[in-house]
């Protein structure tokens, strides 16, 4: 019961794609013409079709990262015509449809570029630096089984909604790719704000922000110079206001970290 393709006007484009066989080898652009493109096709579906063509003609297909294809897993990561995730607003690469392009367009496709995101192959980059930042402090320590009744801690609707705005981050790294400094501030700000807004996140709030920022710096991400390219390309339209919140949290935590209780160095006791 697969539907026949409706009679929509088909067109042709050229994909100019970054090809790089391995991290150590130099890369270059290569052109691939694509014909019979339907406007209802997704951009990644066009890559699927081009790749099948390459396979049949004995060429190696284009490696590209993708998984859920509904804009939530954060795997897909192409810079299309110079913009991470392409022409749409508030969408990931997998949610770009060919109706966004014109017949005859040359579409330039590159990986997300940043020192902290080394290229693995073609359009696929290594983003494990994000996981390292999470491991440093992106959590609320809540041992399984030790939780109180969920309604015992009330959270105002406004707080929960704002925390959810920040928590919507999919960890794709477009913010880093868009930033001229390759800064991960929007990513870190989203996580720090989500957890720092929730009452459950207060006990570890200072420790969290200090640890996450330190790990971010060590991973080779740059600093924020308030250009807001990050929020402009964010597929979840996370606002750069959270960066201001991160800075406030960080400065406060830094001050408070100097005020150690006397007992802090007193050892474990009897």
């Amino acid at each position, binding site marked *: 019961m697969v539907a026949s393709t409706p009679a929509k006007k088909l067109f042709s484009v050229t994909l100019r794609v970054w090809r790089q066989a391995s991290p150590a080898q130099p890369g270059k652009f290569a052109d691939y013409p694509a014909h019979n493109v339907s406007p209802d096709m997704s951009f990644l579906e066009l890559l699927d079709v081009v790749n099948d063509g390459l396979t049949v003609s004995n060429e190696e297909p284009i490696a590209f990262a993708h998984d859920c294809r509904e804009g939530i*897993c954060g795997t897909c990561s192409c810079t299309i015509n110079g913009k991470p995730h392409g022409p749409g607003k508030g969408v990931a690469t997998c949610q770009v449809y060919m109706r966004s392009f014109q017949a005859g367009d040359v579409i330039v496709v590159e990986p997300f570029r940043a020192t902290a995101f080394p290229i693995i192959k073609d359009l696929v980059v290594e983003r494990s630096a994000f996981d390292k930042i999470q491991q440093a402090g992106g959590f609320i320590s*809540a041992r399984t089984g030790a939780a109180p009744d969920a309604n015992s801690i009330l959270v105002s609707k406004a707080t929960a909604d704002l925390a959810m705005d920040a928590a919507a981050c999919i960890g794709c790294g477009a913010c880093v790719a868009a930033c001229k400094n390759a800064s991960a501030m929007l990513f870190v700000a989203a996580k720090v704000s989500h957890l720092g807004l929730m009452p459950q996140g207060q006990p570890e709030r200072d420790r969290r922000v200090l640890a996450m920022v330190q790990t971010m710096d060590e991973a080779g991400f740059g600093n924020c110079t308030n250009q807001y390219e990050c929020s402009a390309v964010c597929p979840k339209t996370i606002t750069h206001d959270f960066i201001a919140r991160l800075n406030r949290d960080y400065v406060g935590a830094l001050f408070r970290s100097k005020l150690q209780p006397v007992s802090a160095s007193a050892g474990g006791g009897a």
Partner: protein
Amino acid sequence: MAKLDSKIPFGPLADKWQQHKTQIKLVNPANKRKYEIIVVGAGLAGSSAAATLAELGYRVKSFVFQDSPRRAHSIAAQGGINGTKNYQNDGDSVHRLFYDTLKGGDYRAREANVHRLAEVSANIIDQCAAQGVPFAREYSGHLANRSFGGAQVSRTFYARGQTGQQLLLGAYSALSRMVGQGAVELHPNSEMLDLVIVDGHAKGVIVRDLKTGAITRHSADAVILATGGYGNVFNLSTYARQSNTTAIWRAYKRGACMANPCYTQIHPTCIPVSGDYQSKLTLMSESLRNDGRIWVPKNKADIKKEPSAIAEADRDYYLERIYPSFGNLAPRDVASRAAMRMCDEGRGVGETGLGVYLDFADAIKRLGEPAVRERYGNLFDIYHEITAENAYQAPMRIFPAVHYTMGGLWVDYNLMSNVPGLFVLGEANFSDHGANRLGASALMQGLADGYFVIPYTIGDYLAQQKPSAQLNINRPEFKQAAESVSAQTQQLLNNPGKEPVSHFHKRLGKIMWEHCGMARTKPGLESALQKIPALREEFVANVKVPGSAETLNQSLEKAGRVADFIDLGELMCRDALTREESCGGHFREEYQYPDGECKRDDEKFGHVAAWEYQGPGQTPLRNIEPLNYEFTKMSVRSYK
């Protein structure tokens, strides 16, 4: 013949889990660090299990084929998670969730498992709230609820339309915490390609590093598979493109039984197919059925008209008409088949005639557009991105699509397969949903298994085993498994074929959808059992896999997965053919009531079918685990 002992504890239903927990063996805290556990998969079940086991003190190795645990497909679940908090004071209870789930599953699940699931559901909500999951709240600060299909109470907790994402990020943060402490060794970009069995016990896995192609061997005292479902056997589904059956299929080939593989869930509310290039079907959350009304034109002559031009009197709100007490919130299998019947009658809408309307006009009139936008805004946005249509102004068009697989590896009450030491969690096992899963129950089961069941039950197994930390990965069992993985890789790469893998996947998907999809028949399944082996022969002779084994090679990954899907598809058809009844998601046209509802045969098929591999080309063995209903009556499911 496999020994299938369900190990259901004795005693009254409501006491079984409590009593079992007090009776099973424990591993003392100092000894826990001597045991190593492999967890494959890092969705809700895998991440929650890995984090919790590490918290307990076990040494955990976590393997995930995605580049980060946060990308596992649990992330895409939209609508919510059930929990019997009864915060709404609307009559919910553990027993009611138990009963709804059992009935929703068309009386094909184990009573004891389902009851345990309902019991721990409230703990899950507590656990997730403590992790900082930003659940939807009332203005008072209390948690908000919504309703889901197959229930008459509001027990579903949610975080906008991204509940799966938020719960997974909660589990991922717990896992990240343990990775940061060095208690979990995380292996992303790592695909399990074989299970290693030593002296009859699961003792390790063979893994391919997807970035470098390196094949490595890993030993452990127990292996947990939490690798999700196999709906991509249909090619087009709501699954992530890379979701696959390989981990559980390779375990099946090592002796683990595959239970009820034909139980497939077809979700009623997905965006219809638009063309042959299509790679993915996108779900529109079931939560939309809280406020959206489903209809088709009463008259065939109206199907090409603009929906706004069809008068109220000429619309057939068929779910409300046929199932007045559940209406638009009828369970998924029921709602999907009803949509198919409408399309079969020639009343489907859209360019292909394979669609029905999901209409929000009444809700917008009642609540106002801003309230509808707040509840479902992100779903309306997704709909707009894909179809370029505005669902605030005109109804959505939806059609059923493959969404979940209730079948999976057979497990006992302790979630251990028939291979000792091999545990299976979440969608990868068969245990809790019977023949149909209710909405908002997948997240619940994944987290129940990982946070609250396996931490207890795995101890019972390990306490009876000596720690085997020194198990040598150069033993013949590991060597043989690793060599067979390498041999398959080389065979695929050297094959002198001409067709890309995707061609075979598409063809398999068409066979499965046509013959083993929403409605199944004896002749259809028999013809599928002819077509699939022929497709396999063609695949072996003609698949073309470019590139090398030593780098990232997505064609190679796909080829291995599709080869397994072909084998699994055949088993699904065999299972569907043998099960001569209709139940839940398994609908055999020969077995239905005059009104088109499922006709079960409890006498002949009130059991679990657990298939046992007998070697390549051999017909697998069909083992049976009888379902003994001690506390509930297997009745005819009615939502009227």
